[in-house]
């Protein structure tokens, strides 16, 4: 569980706080999407969870961030990393090895996973991410989506309870993006892994996440279950966030008094809504 209490952070290089008065609780097994414009503090929020802030980027730190009861200020990032796995935006930069297998071994070897356990964990991580056939491939020869899965597999091999991803689909085509989220959903539902993901594609995110956090200029503006947050579609559009098209359609239908149900999430629900309106 992650608890942020009155958390404010300003980078040493920044002129104003990157995050202000953040009060946020993320429970075990949750799937949280973080959205907001660029510069809203999305990445900083993920850095606060995995300990990069304040350990790697120093600055003024107020309030507290607790991960499973451990204060991130007092805990070394390596120690935190056993609980929180991090996948960064730049997938090429975070790879260390030439081969997929070695990429997975790197973290396990560093954290001293017993040698007789390594093989089992390796196959398990590849299985969970759906890429057992890539084990002996050269990382350079993989597609963007496959690389992203390898990055996640390398983290899963360390068996963290929480995985934090910063725009994992930033450079991917729609189909690969969807695959990445399907994989995250699988991990979340089957193994109860807590997923925290920063994502620009709000429509895609809404189909998978359970909760949304909307940041604007370092503050949490909206926070709650996806459906609840989407009720404020007007507010979101005001800030400049693209709401999913099905939500825009829903809004339009409600305005014209044609529909009175809940806002739909995903295509299937939208279809039911449209059918209901038509009949």
């Amino acid at each position: 569980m992650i608890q942020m209490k009155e958390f404010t952070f300003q980078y040493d290089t920044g002129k104003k706080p990157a995050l202000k008065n953040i009060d946020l609780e993320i429970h075990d097994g949750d799937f949280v999407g973080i959205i907001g414009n660029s510069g809203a503090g999305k990445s900083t929020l993920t850095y606060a969870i995995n300990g990069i802030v304040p350990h790697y980027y120093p600055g003024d730190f107020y309030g507290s961030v607790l991960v499973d009861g451990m204060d991130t200020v007092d805990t070394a990032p390596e120690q935190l990393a056993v609980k929180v796995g991090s996948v960064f935006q730049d997938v090429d930069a975070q790879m260390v090895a030439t081969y997929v297998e070695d990429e997975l071994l790197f973290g396990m070897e560093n954290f001293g996973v017993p040698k007789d356990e390594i093989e089992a964990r390796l196959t398990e991580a590849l299985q969970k991410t759906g890429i057992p056939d890539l084990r002996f491939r050269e990382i350079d020869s993989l597609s963007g989506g496959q690389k992203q899965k390898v990055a996640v597999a390398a983290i899963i091999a360390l068996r963290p309870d929480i995985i934090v991803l910063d725009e994992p689909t930033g450079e991917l085509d729609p189909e690969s993006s969807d695959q990445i989220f399907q994989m995250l959903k699988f991990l979340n539902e089957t193994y109860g892994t807590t997923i925290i993901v920063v994502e620009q594609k709000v429509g895609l995110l809404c189909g998978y996440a359970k909760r949304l956090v909307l940041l604007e200029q370092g503050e949490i503006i909206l926070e709650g279950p996806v459906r609840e947050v989407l009720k404020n579609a007007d507010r979101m559009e005001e800030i400049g966030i693209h709401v999913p098209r099905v939500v825009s359609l829903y809004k339009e239908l409600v305005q014209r008094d044609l529909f009175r149900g809940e806002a739909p999430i995903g295509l299937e629900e939208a279809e039911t809504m449209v059918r209901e309106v038509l009949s």
Partner: protein
Amino acid sequence: MKGLMNYFPGDTFLHRMDPRSKIVFSLLVCIACFVTNNIYVLLGILVLDLLIGVFGGIFTQALRLLKGLLKIALFLFILQALVMRAGTPAFYIGKLAITWEGLKTALMGVLRLIDITLPLALMISLTRMSDLSNALVSRWHVPYKYAFAITSTIRFIPVFTSDLRSIMEAQTARGVEFDTKNFFKKASLIVPLCVPLLISSVKKIETAAMAVELRGFNLRTKDSSSKVSQFHLPDYLLLLLGIGLIVLAVLI
């Protein structure tokens, strides 16, 4: 030289051997090359080098390497033959005498160059970079930071190359003429190319450092590697062969 350090995957006995024995063998061959003064020994070593290519299943690669080396060798051969003045003249170029001794020294020098370059280059083509660094760290206690720095450098080359290409494409799209024939004009284009590359590289390296640290880089010790390199019979035989070559070089 492109492809010099590339690993060529395979499953021959040379691939499976301990990286240490391959490196040591290459060094032993180097020593033998410098000790000997016999042209037949040098020729023999050349054949042996090519045999490494055959047994490693990378004979075409070995030949390509040899071809690349021959270009440098030819230049060195001519230079050496012209410089060496002592001995009996073999033929004259105008008033300049080319001596038999000169030709022989030049040939020996060239053969030495090829003989010492080939084994190491071929052995590295037959060894996975990670196995090599694992062996060096866990067995020879090379600090992991250095091994990591070297493997990362090699790994980042294609990443930076593709960055460079996209920057060049972006600038070409805005009218920069990278295809100009004028050398000075071309040189002046390099500065505006390097600055964005440098910035994006530093950013990449920063992410890389964070990512690696969060995956326990600082916790790694020399015993961390799960793949332990071990000497087997072929390794001892290869080393014996290397020592044998030196003995032969000394005796003949």
